[in-house]
């Protein structure tokens, strides 16, 4: 049994310097409430010895009077404040985090150290290529590694996140068809898709056609054949799909699309199941994006930064975003002459710091280790699925890949919702799985343990789930009132949306 959950000592609030009491005071005051006029957290070097104030140099009419509301604190106050905040978080480094589709695997500490090396962290993006060959070579090696891992022909590391990678891919699809004089304006998306897929399609100017997965949870080539037409630019498929099932007809689906001149976009968000198991390029994918923070262990950071490289087959290479790395006599440089490129998606080259981390991970595991990572991730998911089966049956009879989607009867039997189960798990010190997703499974619990969790952890999760099941039947109020061991009790999210308070304001 997991010990009752605590995320560390709840901080005792310092008395705010200026009494702006919010009753009852939450665990940690806002940084603004700790502020006191005249304090500062940084000593600037007295280097600007000219003694002319900035405002006098450029003229007071260009200058603001003040920074009203900006905090004023000493360095230790600032540090203490944010360390306290850190203690209010669940984190992969502290807790089991089986968040389906998010792949919360261990983030190797050494990766952060490597990204912080002066030669990498201190490198300005406008540094002439001949003075940045180490960085450019790292990028080139990473492109090659990802091409090998995905079985694709060319890779761009440019996009800033997985969802931006999706948009990049779809814009390439659009540019490709346009170049061939075809105005294809629809994209097929399975009803199990990630929410970002339809949103990315809309951004890329496509109309979405929803394809129905079959009763067993996967996409049939027949359904694709029924939907594909000369209007269809591509189909976006996540494989394994969001039910954790490998799409058995993926090659046939690709063929059905290709027969009609449409493309297969493979959402690589679930790539952690595929390393050394099956390559998107061999499935018939024309494009795949990779979410480095999932499969390749870069920090999730409370929501990012991510990085969303795109890998494509040869016919799409000319359309890859700018800037594009190319070989030159002296090594590598960025190529500015790419007439068919969709253009830029962001400032500068890419989220280099994340790429360094992911490259370190790939080096550490190697080809064999990556293959083992996926196999162990799949092992963990199937183990949990099997052990939870008596109380939380699988939503499908198909074999699971790196995650499984489970269901339950507690809503019917005890009036306990999936959300409440999730909140109760927090009390056991476990981050809940993804819930209510995919949308096609009522009350879904989507569980992804990842390869970096031990059998003992998985067993304690099973214990916790079983106990919650019992509680729901025998003491449902305990579950409905969860969480009770966290710094805050159930947060009223509806009120937040009804009356948005999106910033702190100084009391008059």
């Amino acid at each position, binding site marked *: 049994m997991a010990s009752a959950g605590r995320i560390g000592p709840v901080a005792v609030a310092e008395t705010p310097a200026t009494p702006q009491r919010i009753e*009852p005071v939450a665990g940690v005051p*806002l940084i603004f409430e700790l502020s006191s006029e005249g304090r500062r957290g940084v000593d600037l070097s007295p280097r600007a010895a*000219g003694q002319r104030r*900035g405002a006098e140099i*450029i*003229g007071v009419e260009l200058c603001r009077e003040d920074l009203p*509301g*900006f*905090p004023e*604190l000493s360095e230790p106050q600032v*540090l203490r404040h*944010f360390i*306290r*905040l*850190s*203690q*209010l*978080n669940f984190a992969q*480094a502290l807790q089991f985090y089986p968040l389906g589709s998010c792949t919360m695997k261990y983030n190797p500490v050494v990766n952060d150290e*490597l990204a912080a*090396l*002066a030669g*990498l962290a201190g*490198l300005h*993006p406008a540094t002439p290529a001949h*003075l940045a060959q180490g960085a450019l*070579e*790292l990028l080139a090696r990473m492109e090659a*590694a990802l091409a090998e891992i995905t079985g694709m022909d060319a890779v761009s590391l440019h996009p800033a*996140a*997985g*969802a*931006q990678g*999706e948009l990049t891919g779809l814009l390439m699809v659009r540019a490709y068809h346009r170049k061939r004089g075809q105005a294809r304006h629809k994209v097929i998306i399975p009803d199990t898709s990630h929410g970002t897929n*339809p949103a990315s399609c*809309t*951004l890329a100017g496509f109309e979405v056609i929803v394809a129905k997965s079959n009763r067993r949870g996967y996409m049939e080539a027949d359904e694709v054949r029924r939907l594909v037409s000369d209007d269809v630019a591509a189909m976006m498929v996540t494989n394994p799909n969001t039910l954790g099932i490998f799409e058995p007809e993926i090659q046939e689906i690709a063929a059905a699309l290709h027969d009609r001149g449409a493309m297969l976009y493979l959402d690589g968000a679930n790539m952690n199941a595929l390393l050394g198991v*099956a*390559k998107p390029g*061999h499935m018939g994918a024309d494009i795949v994006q990779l979410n480095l923070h999932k499969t390749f*262990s870069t920090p*999730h*950071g409370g929501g*990012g930064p991510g990085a969303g490289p795109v890998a494509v087959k040869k016919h799409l290479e000319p359309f890859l975003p700018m800037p594009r790395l190319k070989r030159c006599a002296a090594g590598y440089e960025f190529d500015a002459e790419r007439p068919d490129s969709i*253009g*830029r998606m962001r400032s*500068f080259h890419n989220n*280099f710091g994340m790429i360094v981390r992911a490259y370190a991970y790939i*080096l550490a595991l*190697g*080809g064999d280790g*990556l293959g083992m990572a996926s196999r162990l991730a799949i092992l963990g998911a199937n183990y949990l699925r099997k052990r939870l089966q008596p109380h939380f049956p699988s939503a499908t009879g198909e074999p699971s890949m790196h995650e499984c989607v489970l269901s339950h009867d507690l809503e019917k039997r005890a009036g306990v919702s999936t959300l409440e189960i999730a*909140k109760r798990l927090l009390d056991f010190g476990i981050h809940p799985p993804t819930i209510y997703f995919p949308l096609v499974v009522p009350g879904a619990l989507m569980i992804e343990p990842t390869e970096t969790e031990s*059998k003992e952890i998985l067993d304690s999760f099973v214990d916790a789930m079983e106990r919650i099941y019992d509680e729901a039947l025998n003491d449902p109020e305990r579950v409905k009132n969860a969480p009770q061991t966290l710094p805050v009790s*159930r947060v009223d*999210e509806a009120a937040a*949306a009804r009356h948005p308070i*999106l*910033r*702190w304001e100084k009391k008059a």
Partner: protein
Amino acid sequence: MRFMPQTERDVAAMLETIGAKHLDDLIAHVPASLRASATINLDRGRSEADVVGEISALAARNTGASGFSSFLGAGYYRHFVPAAVRAVIARAEFATSYTPYQAEASQGTTQAIFEFQTLITQLTAMEVANASMYDGASAAAEAVLMARRLMPRRPVVALSRALWPEYRATIRTYLSALEGLDLVEVPFDDATGATDLSALDRIANDRLLCMVTGYPNALGIIEPLGAIAQITHRAGALAISATAEGIALGLLRAPGELGVDIAVGEGQSFGLPLQFGGPGVGFMAARLTHLRQMPGRLVGQTRDRDGRRAFCLTLSTREQHIRRERATSNICTNHSLCALAATVYLSLMGRVGLRELAEQNVELAHQAAAVLEVAGIRRRFSGPFFNEFALKLANPLAALEAAERRQILAGVALGSDYSELSDALLVSVTEMNLGGEFSRLAAAIAEVR
């Protein structure tokens, strides 16, 4: 295999529970042809020491990173990062947490984002800011899309030509999928380097959707943002400002004070390393009336069941979760950890520190310009500048080479992005530049002038 805790015995026990014999039995349902060709042909895994050795060797080959005096800017700036910033973002409790969907387990991240949102509204003098965008350029593109949602019938998007080339290019890409939009560039004044107001005036009519202006702009010039907003508003259009050098907002009049409707920018200057250009962190702030069309994540304040203050992600109906194809954006990941760095940085700087730092930057940049002037090297533009300015040179590329021979990265030649500015070199100065560097820079450039 150090990242994977399963022993052979564990694997055997788990397989037995599942009812399988071998790990590969678990993937037997994947078509055999795919499995057969799935082997990853990369080197075998390495020890931590080997990985450190290999990547350190690559790092060491970036000779530009050390031993050089640098005047590179052009959208990314070298500022001092207090150690406390790194200490906070290195905390595993922040770095290894996920998007705060479970509010009760994410009060640290959500409160920090709430503080970030507040700081950005204060800095920009706007009413609402989101939880961060990817970077400045994509934030600018999202701002234009947001304007489009607010006024779907207006077809003309105006971009100042003195807006950062990367920002213009990114906007162009994001808009490429939308039908019926015209992108027009408003020229800059060849003498001042500021956006040409009369040119803007000529296109400011009821077809104009928005005008995007760099503040300061890509030529280093502090734009007359108030006048630009006025002209834009007269046409009923939206004024968007884009700031690549966030430190400037510590001193310059805030976009919100000057009538800007959407203020976006890059927060890299706020405590993030250069990192060869990423990750940075985009910010976006707007008027409260535009809230529902704002893209990306937002954190709101609310209460828990016991009435305590609490924070959570909010207004997610605008997001990809619910309305899916009608979402205001496809943003899923934001740049939360980078936004945290900016929050810590701005908190340390504080009300007085940020202002002083901004003033230092202005003073040092003007000192540098004066030293160059004494050496007979003139500025290309006459408009007011913050910490970056263009020099007028017969051959900027030769100047760069001459400087490099003296271990100086003198700046960015504007000719690669502006054909009309083959005579200009953009020099950036921050508090990281030492006074003595200016005369060495002047000497290097004077050598080839």
